[in-house]
């Protein structure tokens, strides 16, 4: 099992969720985050006081999947999330040791879906 964390552009979220859905990856958790990357942040001005503004709004999508779903998940995120310009983000894949469904107490591969 893998725990996949993806950072994407906020306005790509709907597309990513749709693509995941198409590949039958329905279960996800989304968080609103700020990211600093290669993409230059927009600097802001408050009463002439300039702020560097290196951080930009991003979305973090977390998906826990069984191993056979890792590639479809990556594909879905890349397809839905790519705009081709700097700032599109990253996908991080971590090992998932165990998974428990709170409602039933089931564990492992069956609990994940």
């Amino acid at each position: 099992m893998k725990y996949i964390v993806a950072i994407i552009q906020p306005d790509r979220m709907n597309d990513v969720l749709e693509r995941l859905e198409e590949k039958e990856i329905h279960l996800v958790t989304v968080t609103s985050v700020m990211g600093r990357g290669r993409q230059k942040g927009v600097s802001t001005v408050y009463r002439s006081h300039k702020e560097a503004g290196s951080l930009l709004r991003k979305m973090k999508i977390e998906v826990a999947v069984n191993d056979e779903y890792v590639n479809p998940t990556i594909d879905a995120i890349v397809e839905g999330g790519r705009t081709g310009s700097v700032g599109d983000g990253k996908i991080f894949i971590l090992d998932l040791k165990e998974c428990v469904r709170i409602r039933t107490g089931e564990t492992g591969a069956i609990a994940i879906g």
Partner: protein
Amino acid sequence: MKIRNLCWGLFVIALIVAGLVVLAAGEHSQASKEIAVLKSIDSGDTAWMLISAALVMFMTPGLAFFYGGLVRRKNVLSVLMQCMFILCLVTVQWILFGYSLSFGPTINGIIGDLSFAGLLGVGMAPSAVYATTVPHCLFMIYQAMFAVITPALIIGAFAERIRFVPFCIFTLLWSTIVYDPIVHWLWADKGILGVSGGMGALDFAGGIVVHINAGMASLAAALFLGKRIGYPDKISPPHNLPFAVLGAGMLWFGWFGFNAGSALSSGGLAANAFVVTHIAGAVAGLTWGVLDIIYNNRSTVLGLITGAVAGLAAITPAAGFVTPLGAIVIGIGAGVICYMSVTFAKAKFGYDDSLDAFGVHGISGIWGTLAVGLFASKFVNESGGEGLLYGGIELFFDQLSAIVITMVYSFVLSYILFWIVDKIFVLRVTEHSERVGLDLTEHREAAYTTLE
């Protein structure tokens, strides 16, 4: 870009300086005239007009929040900015020449001359023709607030995708070329469409002048600019509905100044306008609430306030001419018609009127103005007219003509203005800017901090 902005800065400054000269010239003559007639001022009427002007001013921040709550988080400041900037910009336009074009001595009923430019002769003494029991300058500033909120309504149509500087230029031109003449036609002494020497169309507080006018410009904006990226299915829902409710509350509150203030005095007519305004807003809100239950199985707060605003807009032209009975019918009509327009018509035609500036204000303005031709009664206002219901046929056709004329004029001219400003300055933001949000790209500000 830099250069264009500079140009524009210079333009504004030039305008101001020009105005100053005019003003300086007029000062003395004006001031001396005033003292003579000061006694005809009624302190009660003046008190009511002072607070009414303040109330109408308060509607612009109200509108800012009504609209601002409905856009996406990344664009809220751009909407607030546009509203507040109009408050500043159009005020200056108004005192320099807008008021004179609108209410100055008429040139063939088409437009005012420049006699009042720079407020020349617009002092503490009452005007001989407008609001004769309050200082002339008070009538002027009261009207200034109308000149401000009308272009602000259009923001609802092009929200989330217009560049700021071109927007300012468009607004300045639109106020001068579209708003000022239409005001003149309807409300100025001897204006071609109005009652005092014109065709005879009635528009108590701005159904034509404000709502139809801004509504048609909104339609032009929506058609000219095209849809937002992702419209209609991938646009996030309103980012802060409580703000929209706050804005609606402020609008409703201010609307009493807007409609009851248009009586230009403190008495029975103002009271009637106040009453029918409140009734129409309430009835339309209720109507929308019921329609929401019927079609969506739930009453929504956005629906309720949208309905209320539609009702308030619809009663605007009629507030001084109809009875509470009329107000109820107008309210129900506004609720039903705007509900249909926003729900079905917009979906069908597929234009992107972001916040339904046309669908709510335009449509309810048309309905309300027509309704004057149906329900107006001389019992309410002797200087009004008789609607169809009371046997008056003429008025109905006058209303119809005035509606059609202003719809066409406003739509065509607005479209042309958009076209011209777009050719010279480019109206629409880049795709990147639309994605990132106008707050950051157009104003270098973020509305809320997230990491703190």
